[in-house]
C-alpha cells in the first residue's frame, strides 16, 4: 500500500507531522508514504529532512487534483490510499481499508472522517452538512456498505483503476483560492463505469480524525462551501451525466435532510435549546445554497473540463510487506451492487469476537447426530423411515453450518469453530455407522497391519490383504502406540482419526485464510471441501490416507504461514513442517507424491510470477520440495520397492479402460449402477445437480479467484488444481473410474473449495437477490454436499442393516465373523485361503489367514468358484495359489454383488454366471480328497490340502 498526503502550506506543518506520525503507527504499515508538496518550496525544504517518507513536488498545475496525480505517478503500491495533511488516522485505519481488497469486485475503500473541531462543533452546524468541512456526514451508511463515491480525506483505490480509468481531473478540485471539490466524486464515478460490477466501499470503522480549524467554523465558510459544492456538482454532472452525478444527492436530499430537520427540531424542544433549532435552518439554507450553486454552474458557459486524464503508466510494484500478525478484523461483507441488497448484507462490524452462533450450531449438530443414530438403529431393524431420518440428521449437521459460514456477520473465531465442529460432526456420522468395530473394506485391511505391529512389536510384517499397507504404517503406528495403553485398535483408531480430522479442518481454514486474507472465504472453502464425495465416509475410515491427507494440509498450512513470518517462529514452523513431511511419507504413497508435486509447483509458480513486474506473494522455497522428493524416492527404494507397481498398474488400468472406451472397444460404465443395482432416481438427480452446480459455478469463480490470486504463488496453484476438476470427471466413465475420480477429488477439491468460496463470496451471492444470500448459499452448498455423499458411497452402505451380498459394511456380520474366528482357533494363523471378497477380509484380518488374491499373490481365485463343475482351471488355481482352505458362502447365489465384484477387481464373469450358481459353490461336496470341515448353513469351509498335495506331486486329481 502506498499512502499519499498532499500539502501546500507551512502553516499546517504540525498537522502534517501528526498525520505522518499516525501513518507510521499503523498496525498494517504502508510500504511507502508519499508527501506531495503543492508548489511551496519552503515547505518542501523543511519536509526533505523527514525520514521514512518520500517527498515530491506537484508537477502539475496548482491544486489538490494535480498534487494527487503527482503522488500517483510515483506510487508503486497495489493499493493507493489518500490522507489529508490535517487528518490523523486511527491505528487500524490502513488495516481496515486494506482488508477489503480480498474481494476482486472492490476497487476502492474509504472510511469515516470524524471532525475534530478546534473550538467544538458550532451549535448551529448540522451533522448532515459535515461534508462542508470535508467529513463524513449523517446520511452515509452507519455500517460497511457500497457507496457511489468516497471522500478525499480518507479513501483508497486499487492502482489498476488509475491505470485503466485515468487519474484526477485537474480542472476539478480545491485550490488555495477556490473551495471547490468533487474531484474524487468524478473519479469514483468514472472508475465505477470503467469496471462493470465493481464496488466502492465505505467502512465507517476505518476512521481518521480531521482537524477543523477555526476559520471553518464560520457561517461565511459554510455558505461559500455549499455554493461551491453545488457548482462543482454541476460540472461533474456535465462530465458524467446528471443521472450518475446526482444519484446519491437525491437520496440524501429526500431522506437525510428531512430527518435532520425533524431531529434538530425535536432536540431543540427536548433540550429547550434554540441554538440547536438553528441547525434545521442551516439545513434548509445549506440545501438552498447548494442548489443555487448547482443552477449557477449549469447556467454558466461550459468550463473547460481539462484534458481527459491519462491512464497511469504501469510501474514496478512494491513487494508487499506482510503484517507480522493477522489483524483482528471482522470479515469484509459480501459485495452488493444495489443499496437495498447492500443494506441487507452489511456486516455488523464489531461482531468479530465471540463464538456467535457456534454454541447453537453445536447443539444443532448434536441433534443431527442423535437423529443419525436413530436412523442407524432404525436401519438395523429394517425400518423404512431410516433413509429419510439419515438425510434429515446429516442435513441438520451441515445446512445450518453452511448458512452461517456463508453469512457475512460471523467472526473469525466463530467460523473456525464451526469448521472444526462440522468436520468432527460429519466424521461422527461415520463412527455412528459402525460404533463397535471396523466394517468398511479398507478398515479391515489396515486393522491387520495395526494388529501385526502390536503382536510382533515391529514394522513391515507382510500383510496379505494389502501388502503395501505394511510399508506405509503411519496410521497404524500412531494407532498401535495408543492401543498399547490397553485400548482396542478400534477405539485407538477412532481417536487418532478424530484428531486428524480436527487438524485437517484447522489446517484447511488457515491455508485458505492465508491465501484469501478472509475468514469468510476460509470458512466457505472448508465447507465446500466437506462436500467432497469422500469426506464423510471414505476419508473418515481407518485407512492410511485418512491420516496422510490431513497431515499434508497441515504441512501446506505451516509453509503458507511460514512465508510471512520471521525469526524463531519461522524456523519453528519450518521444523514442524519437515516432521510433517516425514510422517506423510511414512503414511501414504499417493499422498506423499501429491505433496511433492504440490511443493514443486508451488515453488515453480513463485519463480515464474516473480519474473514479471512484481514479486510473487505466498511463495515457498525449494528445500521442502527437495526434501519431500528425496524422502519419497528413498522410501520407495529402501522400504517399499513394490509401490511403483502397486500405484502404477491400477492407474494404467484406468487410463487403458478410458482408451478402450474412447476407441469404441469397450462400452462406458453405466452411471449410478454397481453390480446391477441402480441407485434411486432422486439420488441420481441430486448427484448430477451437485456436479452441475460445481461445473456451472467454476468458470466465474475461477475468474474471480484468478483476478485476486494471480500474484500469489499458492493461490495460482490452487486455481490450477480447481481447473483439473472438470477433466477428472471423465474418469467416471470407466469401470474403475468412480473410485479414481473420488480419490482424485480429495486433492483437487483443495483448490475447488477455495475457488468456489471466492466465487461465492465475490460474485455468486450477487445473484441471490430474492432470498437471503446466506440461505441461498447454504441451500446450494447443501445440494453439493448431498450429491457428494451420494457419489462417494453407494446407498446400500450408508446405513447399517441386514446382510447384503458383497455389500461392504453390510456383509460384515456374525456368521462370517464366526468362521474367521473358527479358522484361526482350529488351524492357526497364516493358512492360504480362497474365498470371496468379504469373507476374505474377515478371515484375513480377524482370522489372521492369508487370503490368496491377485494383488498380493498374483493369483485371482475366481476361476475356482465360477464354474459349475470342477475342471482343470480349478486345479490350476489351487496349485498356483497353494490353497489349503476354500470358504464358500451360499448367500452369494442370492444376489449380484453390491460392491460390483464377488471376489476382486478384474474378475472375469462367465456369461451366465451372474449371480453365482448354487452348483458353482457346492461342487466341492463329495469331491475326492476334499473335506468339509466347517458348516454354518450359509458358509462352508473345505480343506483341499490333500488335493493340492497330489497336484504338486504331479499325480493329478
Amino acid at each position, binding site marked *: 500500500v502506498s499512502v499519499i498526503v498532499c500539502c501546500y502550506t507551512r502553516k499546517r506543518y504540525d498537522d502534517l507531522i501528526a498525520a505522518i506520525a499516525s501513518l507510521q503507527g499503523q498496525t498494517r504499515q504502508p510500504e511507502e508514504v508519499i508527501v506531495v508538496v503543492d508548489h511551496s518550496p519552503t515547505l518542501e525544504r523543511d519536509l526533505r529532512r523527514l525520514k521514512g517518507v518520500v517527498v515530491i513536488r506537484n508537477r502539475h498545475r496548482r491544486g489538490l487534483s494535480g498534487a494527487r496525480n503527482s503522488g500517483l505517478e510515483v506510487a508503486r503500491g497495489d493499493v493507493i490510499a489518500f490522507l489529508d495533511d490535517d487528518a490523523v488516522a486511527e491505528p487500524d485505519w490502513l488495516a481496515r481499508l486494506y482488508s477489503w481488497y480480498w474481494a476482486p469486485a472492490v476497487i476502492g475503500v474509504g472510511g469515516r472522517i470524524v471532525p475534530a473541531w478546534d473550538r467544538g462543533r458550532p451549535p448551529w452546524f448540522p451533522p448532515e452538512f459535515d461534508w462542508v468541512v470535508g467529513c463524513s456526514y449523517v446520511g452515509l451508511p452507519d455500517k460497511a456498505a457500497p457507496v457511489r463515491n468516497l471522500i478525499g480525506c480518507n479513501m483508497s483505490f486499487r492502482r489498476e483503476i488509475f491505470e485503466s480509468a485515468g487519474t484526477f481531473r485537474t480542472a476539478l478540485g480545491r485550490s488555495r483560492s477556490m473551495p471547490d471539490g468533487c474531484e474524487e466524486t468524478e473519479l469514483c464515478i468514472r472508475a465505477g463505469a470503467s469496471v462493470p460490477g465493481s464496488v466502492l466501499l465505505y467502512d465507517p470503522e476505518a476512521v481518521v480524525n480531521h482537524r477543523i480549524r477555526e476559520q471553518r467554523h464560520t457561517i461565511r465558510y459554510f455558505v461559500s462551501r455549499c455554493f461551491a459544492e453545488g457548482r462543482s456538482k454541476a460540472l461533474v454532472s456535465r462530465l458524467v451525466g446528471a443521472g450518475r452525478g446526482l444519484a446519491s444527492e437525491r437520496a440524501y436530499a429526500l431522506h437525510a435532510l428531512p430527518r435532520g430537520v425533524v431531529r434538530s427540531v425535536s432536540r431543540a424542544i427536548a433540550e429547550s435549546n434554540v441554538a440547536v433549532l438553528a441547525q434545521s435552518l442551516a439545513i434548509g439554507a445549506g440545501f438552498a445554497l447548494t442548489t443555487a450553486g448547482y443552477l449557477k454552474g449549469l447556467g454558466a458557459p461550459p468550463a473547460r473540463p481539462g484534458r481527459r486524464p491519462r491512464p497511469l503508466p504501469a510501474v514496478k510494484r512494491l513487494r508487499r510487506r506482510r503484517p507480522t500478525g493477522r489483524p483482528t478484523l471482522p470479515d469484509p461483507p459480501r459485495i452488493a451492487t444495489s443499496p437495498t441488497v447492500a443494506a441487507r448484507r452489511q456486516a455488523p462490524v464489531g461482531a468479530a469476537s465471540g*463464538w456467535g452462533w*457456534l*454454541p*447453537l450450531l*453445536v*447443539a*444443532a*449438530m*448434536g*441433534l443431527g*447426530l*442423535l*437423529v*443419525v*443414530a*436413530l436412523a*442407524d*438403529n432404525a436401519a*438395523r*431393524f429394517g425400518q423404512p423411515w431410516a433413509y429419510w431420518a439419515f438425510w434429515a440428521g446429516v442435513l441438520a449437521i451441515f445446512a445450518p453450518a453452511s448458512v452461517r459460514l456463508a453469512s457475512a456477520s460471523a467472526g473469525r473465531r466463530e467460523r473456525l469453530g464451526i469448521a472444526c465442529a462440522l468436520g468432527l*460432526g460429519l466424521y*461422527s456420522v461415520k*463412527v*455412528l455407522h*459402525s*460404533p*463397535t468395530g471396523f466394517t468398511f473394506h479398507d478398515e479391515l485391511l489396515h486393522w491387520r497391519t495395526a494388529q501385526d505391529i502390536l503382536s510382533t512389536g515391529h514394522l513391515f510384517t507382510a500383510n496379505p490383504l494389502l501388502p503395501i499397507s505394511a510399508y506405509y504404517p503411519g496410521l497404524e503406528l500412531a494407532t498401535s502406540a495408543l492401543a498399547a495403553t490397553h485400548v482396542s485398535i478400534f477405539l485407538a483408531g477412532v481417536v487418532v482419526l478424530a484428531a486428524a480430522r480436527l487438524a485437517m479442518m484447522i489446517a484447511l481454514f488457515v491455508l485458505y485464510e492465508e491465501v484469501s486474507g478472509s475468514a469468510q472465504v476460509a470458512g466457505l472453502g472448508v465447507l465446500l471441501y466437506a462436500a467432497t464425495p469422500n469426506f464423510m465416509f471414505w476419508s473418515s475410515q481407518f485407512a492410511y490416507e485418512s491420516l496422510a491427507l490431513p497431515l499434508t494440509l497441515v504441512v501446506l498450512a505451516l509453509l503458507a504461514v511460514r512465508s510471512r513470518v520471521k525469526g524463531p517462529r519461522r524456523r519453528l514452523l519450518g521444523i514442524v513442517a519437515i516432521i510433517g513431511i516425514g510422517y506423510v511419507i511414512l503414511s501414504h504413497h499417493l499422498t506423499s507424491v501429491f505433496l511433492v508435486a504440490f511443493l514443486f509447483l508451488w515453488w515453480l509458480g513463485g519463480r515464474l510470477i516473480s519474473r514479471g513486474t512484481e514479486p510473487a506473494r505466498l511463495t515457498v522455497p525449494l528445500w521442502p520440495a527437495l526434501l519431500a522428493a528425496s524422502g519419497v524416492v528413498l522410501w520407495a527404494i529402501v522400504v517399499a520397492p513394490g509401490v511403483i507397481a502397486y500405484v502404477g498398474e491400477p492407474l494404467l488400468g484406468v487410463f487403458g479402460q478410458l482408451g478402450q472406451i474412447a476407441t469404441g472397444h469397450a462400452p462406458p460404465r453405466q452411471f449410478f449402477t454397481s453390480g446391477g443395482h441402480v441407485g434411486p432416481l432422486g439420488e441420481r438427480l441430486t448427484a448430477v445437480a451437485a456436479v452441475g452446480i460445481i461445473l456451472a459455478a467454476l468458470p466465474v469463480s475461477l475468474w474471480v479467484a484468478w483476478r485476486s490470486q494471480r500474484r500469489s504463488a499458492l493461490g495460482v496453484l490452487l486455481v490450477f488444481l480447481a481447473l483439473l476438476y472438470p477433466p477428472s470427471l471423465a474418469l467416471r466413465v470407466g469401470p474403475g473410474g468412480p473410485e479414481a475420480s473420488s480419490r482424485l477429488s480429495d486433492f483437487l477439491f483443495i483448490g475447488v473449495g477455495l475457488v468456489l468460496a471466492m466465487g461465492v463470496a465475490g460474485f455468486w451471492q450477487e445473484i441471490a437477490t430474492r432470498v437471503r444470500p446466506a440461505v441461498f448459499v447454504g441451500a446450494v452448498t447443501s445440494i453439493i454436499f448431498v450429491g457428494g455423499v451420494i457419489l462417494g458411497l453407494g446407498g446400500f452402505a450408508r446405513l*447399517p442393516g*441386514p*446382510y447384503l451380498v458383497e455389500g461392504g459394511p453390510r456383509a460384515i*456380520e*456374525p*456368521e462370517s465373523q*464366526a*468362521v474367521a474366528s*473358527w479358522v484361526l482357533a*482350529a488351524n492357526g494363523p497364516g493358512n492360504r485361503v480362497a474365498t470371496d471378497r468379504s469373507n476374505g477380509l474377515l478371515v484375513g484380518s480377524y482370522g489372521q489367514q492369508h487370503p490368496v488374491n491377485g494383488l498380493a499373490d498374483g493369483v485371482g481365485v475366481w476361476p475356482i468358484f465360477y464354474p459349475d463343475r470342477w475342471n482343470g482351471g480349478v486345479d490350476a488355481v489351487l496349485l498356483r495359489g497353494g490353497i489349503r482352505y476354500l470358504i464358500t458362502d451360499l448367500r452369494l447365489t442370492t444376489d449380484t454383488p453390491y460392491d460390483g465384484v464377488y471376489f476382486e477387481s478384474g474378475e472375469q464373469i462367465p456369461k451366465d454366471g451372474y449371480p453365482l450358481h448354487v452348483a458353482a459353490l457346492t461342487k466341492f*461336496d*463329495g469331491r*475326492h*480328497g*476334499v*473335506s*468339509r*470341515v*466347517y*458348516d*454354518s*448353513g*450359509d458358509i462352508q*469351509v473345505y*480343506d483341499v*490340502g*490333500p488335493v493340492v*498335495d*497330489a497336484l504338486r506331486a504331479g499325480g493329478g486329481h
Partner: protein
Amino acid sequence: MGRAGQIALLALGLALAIIGFAISTRGAAQQPHPPFTGAWMEPRSGGFVAIGITSHEDSTLNYSVELVQGPALLHEWKGIRLRPGQTWQVTASAPAGDVAAYVFREDKPATPYRHLNLAADLRAAMG
C-alpha cells in the same frame, strides 16, 4: 446470549451427541441377524476325530450328532442342549477312511441341519 447460555448450548450439543453414540452402540449390539449354528469336524492323530457345535441361535436348541462311515453309524450323540453362544465338542475314534458327521436339530429330525466330512487322505496326513 450470555456466556452461561452459550455453555449450556455447547453442553446440550455434546450431550445429544453422546446420547447418539450410546444409542447407536446399543443398537449395533442388538442388531438382529439370522440365527445359525456352526459345526465342525477335524482329524486328530491316532484315528480320532473332533466334532463340535456352537449355537448362535435365538433360543436354546436340542441337537443330535451322528458320525458315520459309509452306511455304518460309528457314534451317535443325542440330547445335546445348547443355549445361544454355548459350544459342545467331543472327540471320538473312527476307523481309517472317509467319515462324515451329520448334525440334526431334534425339533426337525428329518433333515440334517449341518453336514461335515473328512477325507481319508486328510486323516492319513494327520497320522
